[in-house]
């Protein structure tokens, strides 16, 4: 392939991959602490909705991003507290949140924009332009977040504390770690990143809110977490590859737009890639020992 053709694809990939990387890095943090959150999809949908509504009424996409982060953080804290404190079934919570998000999105879309499918076009966060190459500014944030998360998890006492909750909460407790509090707060922080991912999806990538805007990205992020073996830097690489796959699918769709049925077929590419990647590279991955199990003190 001609390199001149490849550069626009690589630059365009910064948008979708920023979403995936931030969602995956958030999930890595929360899973390291022992809590699994399969409600990323719903959290991105609800926070993306918050971003859209806030931007619609204030005219400022930046306020929209802020609102999405707040909403994401609150949802994360709820999931964290329900998982850590109330010993809930974390998978069932996630399924419920994902379904609730669909109902909420539809109701708010009708109330604000008068139809159940999509919002009106929203003011977008502008692309960054460096030397003639324009890319998504949030990609830098995603790179920063994954480096920071990697540093925290591997080089700091805080990272050790988080990992101890996910590996052996009983020993962590014996060492004086307040397991339930750490899990709740980390899941809240992760929620903030999921909220940011939702905002980027709406305001930095698509430019409007639609009912099915997340389209399984929350679960692709879960796949990235496994493929990256819970390593934020690997998640950055994997997220970027998946973002590139998405842009390639879109580019091919544009090329074949006149042939009926082709765009549907091309849409399956990212999902097939996700299953294949986990099947090929997920075998060697090792999840935190206590992942998803409620820790009940004796």
């Amino acid at each position: 392939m001609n390199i001149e053709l490849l550069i626009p694809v690589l630059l365009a990939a910064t948008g979708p991959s920023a979403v995936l990387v931030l969602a995956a890095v958030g999930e890595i943090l929360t899973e390291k602490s022992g809590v699994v959150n399969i409600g990323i999809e719903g959290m991105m949908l609800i926070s993306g909705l918050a971003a859209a509504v806030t931007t619609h009424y204030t005219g400022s996409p930046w306020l929209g991003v802020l609102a999405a982060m707040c909403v994401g953080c609150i949802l994360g804290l709820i999931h964290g507290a329900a998982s850590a404190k109330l010993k809930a079934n974390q998978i069932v919570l996630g399924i419920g949140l994902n379904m609730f998000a669909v109902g909420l999105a539809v109701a708010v879309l009708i109330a604000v924009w008068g139809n159940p499918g999509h919002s009106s076009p929203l003011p977008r966060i502008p692309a960054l332009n460096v030397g003639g190459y324009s890319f998504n500014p949030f990609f830098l944030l995603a790179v920063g977040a994954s480096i920071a998360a990697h540093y925290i998890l591997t080089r700091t006492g805080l990272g050790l504390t988080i990992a101890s909750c996910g590996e052996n909460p009983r020993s962590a407790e014996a060492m004086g770690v307040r397991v339930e509090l750490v899990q709740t707060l980390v899941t809240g922080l992760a929620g903030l990143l999921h909220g940011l991912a939702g905002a980027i999806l709406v305001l930095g990538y698509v430019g409007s809110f639609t009912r099915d805007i997340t389209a399984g990205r929350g679960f692709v992020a879960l796949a990235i977490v496994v493929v990256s073996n819970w390593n934020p830097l690997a998640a950055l690489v994997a997220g970027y590859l998946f973002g590139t796959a998405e842009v390639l699918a879109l580019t091919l769709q544009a090329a074949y737009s006149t042939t009926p049925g082709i765009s549907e077929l091309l849409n399956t590419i990212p999902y097939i890639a996700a299953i294949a990647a986990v099947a090929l590279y997920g075998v060697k991955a090792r999840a935190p020992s206590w992942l998803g199990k409620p820790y009940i003190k004796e």
Partner: protein
Amino acid sequence: MEWLANTLLASLTSLVLGLAVVGVLLAVLGYDPIEAYELLFRGAIENISIAVDRMALYVLTGLAFAIPALAGLFNIGGEGMAYLGALAALVVGYLVPNPLAVLLAGGLVGALLGVFVALLKLYRGVHEVVSTVMLNWILYYLARHIVVVYLKDPRYPDVSKPLPPQARLPPVEGVHTGLLIAVISAIAAYVVVYHTRIGLYMRATGFDVDAARYQAVNVKLASLASMALGGFFGGLAGAVLIACELYKLDVALSSLYGVGFNGIGVALLAWNHPLGTIATAALVSSLFAGGYNLQLHLDLDVHVVTGIVGVIVFSLGLPSIYTLVQRRLVLRKVGQT
């Protein structure tokens, strides 16, 4: 009996919570929640034919979640299984216009999909939640592709060719054949899960994998069997829609969209008991029939009801709801004596 009373109370609590949260939400958005509730409840009776149609599908997708769940697997793929089942039912119906062949085709492709998911988990470590959700999306687009390119009715836009009349199962003397199939399926699933050896293995695996292994239970076989059986019913849901209800499929799959997810709500409300899904499917499908009233009279969308089911599922994930209910019961008893 006390166990039954407690579980019923917990399910009821979650239902009330679901209605309450969405009621508050509608009030915030400027709707009259009392009017919405009234429409919702009236809709179950006014749109009884929609309710019965949906109920047949929800029993089956409920089983698609419940059976693997009893073996410890979270099958989120009821949605994709139903898509694939509907597709297989149509294709087989065109070639072999026989209702039994149509239904079996739907069930079998669902079962194969279930086995594929179980194999991915057992041999490649792909968590079933990730694989089933990805498959839902893959099958959604694949089904659309196949309907658009190969099965489209040239006379109408966006609809597949109809199922040949000989392959259909219309109501017999007023009895909805789909519902009959669904109820028989639930009873069959109950017998397999609670009265056969493989059913015991499934439940043992779901209860405690390690304990099951020490008792020489073939855990892999139990997982495979539970996903195959669950998948069969998921695929059958799609085939029932084709053979007993619509006799065709629309390009956007809107007639199937959400059946898998609502099946999860149905199963959890029934605490994954196969026979319980009959009752809870009646409940959830009534909510959906009511949802059409919201669409008709308040210009809302039927998918608002998905929000209600979502809250129900979320609250059923909280064990504290259950213990809260239980504690109140116990306390009252102590107080009385």
